[in-house]
């Protein structure tokens, strides 16, 4: 399957030349969750999740704290196995090849106890794509090019998140999961990250991101998935969602109200 990346597109930067996404053979629907349930310690965290995500573009997952967004992302990413139900990529059960084409930035970034530079090198070497120029470009892209030798754990929270994103990009993902990747970033850093996300999406990487920032979701996302208490209440194009959400929970969320269940 040929890579469909337009590297001449203005504003794309040189990252894609160094690190093209792996170009999954994309069908119309890329990710299918069928009847996914997840229970832990007797607590139902996800229930009856049925979701078909579009192959391209940016999907934002929104919902109240504790709705199950992070767990859902981990289930999609294949690092948490659902108690029931299945996850399919391109109509096939997730296989090793699919798994290597995904990367995730966690809500709380976990960095190796090494230098900034070594954190990136580790992944590039694991993927057998190490080149100093690649690492330098990645670090420059997230604005960490003056911190090469700083121990990653001495970075500020926002810098750690940017490093985690650079590391995820080093995996050359076809699907990139972002769990509140801009939550602790200043406006300038947020803009950098949003640019990268946009760029990646244009270059063909599917982005699935959790965010509480409605303005950000409106700016970036093509589709919104809204979650409430472990279920999906709606999955709509972004303009539709922000103009008039279908579900009461989403209305409450956007109005900044807590939503009370009738049950």
């Amino acid at each position, binding site marked *: 399957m040929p890579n469909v990346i337009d590297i001449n597109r203005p504003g794309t930067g040189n990252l894609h030349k160094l690190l093209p996404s792996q170009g999954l053979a994309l069908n119309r629907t890329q990710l299918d969750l069928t009847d996914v349930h997840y229970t832990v310690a007797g607590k139902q965290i996800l229930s009856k999740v049925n979701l078909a995500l579009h192959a391209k573009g940016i999907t934002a997952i929104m919902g109240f704290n504790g709705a199950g967004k992070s767990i859902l992302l*981990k289930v999609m*990413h294949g*690092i948490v196995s659902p108690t029931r139900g299945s996850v399919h990529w391109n109509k096939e059960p997730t296989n*090793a090849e699919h*798994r*290597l084409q*995904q*990367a*995730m930035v*966690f809500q709380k970034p*976990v960095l*190796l*106890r*090494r230098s900034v530079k070594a954190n990136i090198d*580790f*992944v590039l070497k*694991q993927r057998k794509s190490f080149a100093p120029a690649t690492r330098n470009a990645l670090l420059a892209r997230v604005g960490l090019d003056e911190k090469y030798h700083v*121990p990653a*754990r*001495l970075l500020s929270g926002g810098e750690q998140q940017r490093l985690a994103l650079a590391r995820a990009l080093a*995996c050359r993902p076809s699907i990139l999961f972002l769990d509140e990747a801009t939550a602790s970033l200043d406006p300038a850093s947020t803009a950098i990250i949003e640019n990268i996300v946009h760029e990646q999406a244009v270059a063909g990487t599917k982005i699935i991101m959790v965010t509480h920032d409605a303005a950000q979701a409106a700016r970036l996302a093509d589709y919104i998935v809204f979650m409430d208490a472990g279920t999906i209440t709606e999955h709509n194009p972004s303009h539709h969602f922000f103009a008039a959400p279908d579900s009461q929970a989403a209305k409450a969320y956007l109005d900044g109200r807590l939503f009370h269940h009738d049950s």
Partner: protein
Amino acid sequence: MQESAINIAVNLITQGDPDLYEIIGLSLRVSLSSVALSLIFGLTLGAALATGQFRGRAVLNIIINALMSMPPVVVGLLVYLALSRSGPMGWLGLLYTPTAMIIAQTFLITPLITALSRQVIEDLYLEYKEQFASLRLTQSQRIKALLWDARYSLSTVALAGLGRALSEVGAVIIVGGNIEHLTRVMTTAIALETSKGDLALALALGMILLGLALLINILLSSLNLSARRQAYA
């Protein structure tokens, strides 16, 4: 008498008494070799216990912890039984050789290194696990990364093992026999010379042993310090 013993002891050390340094040399050789061997076994086992999902893991943990508190004389006795002429390994003719002492100390220290390194690696793995899963690391890639990132803590584990080996007397005296110029090490020499009333040599060895213990502790705290400074702790 006490005072002159101290003087003689200091002279033995400063003038490079050959008997004294032979004993020190053998002590270091035996202890360092057994720590090296214990690290090979202990780190492998510790990493497997910390990261593996296999049957009998909990039981193995309990056994290792029990072995860790096994008295050195008992370890010495078991190795003696194995190596003695009528024992299963008797044909090797290893009893009363430095090799026998290395074997006994390896048995003594491996459980300690296994248990401590398992703890260190497990703590780190708890933190890294999700990230490793996300990066799709293989088991061996995970273990390599964990061992590297835990290197400061693991060095302190090695030093703890060395401290135990150097100060241990029960196991090496049983399988080594404390034979002059052959299997006499610092601790066994101190025990013998003290019982013979030759306090000078015993004291000299005691001072060296204390000095080594001090050195190990200095190394330990400087390791901790540099690990913390670099935020690897």
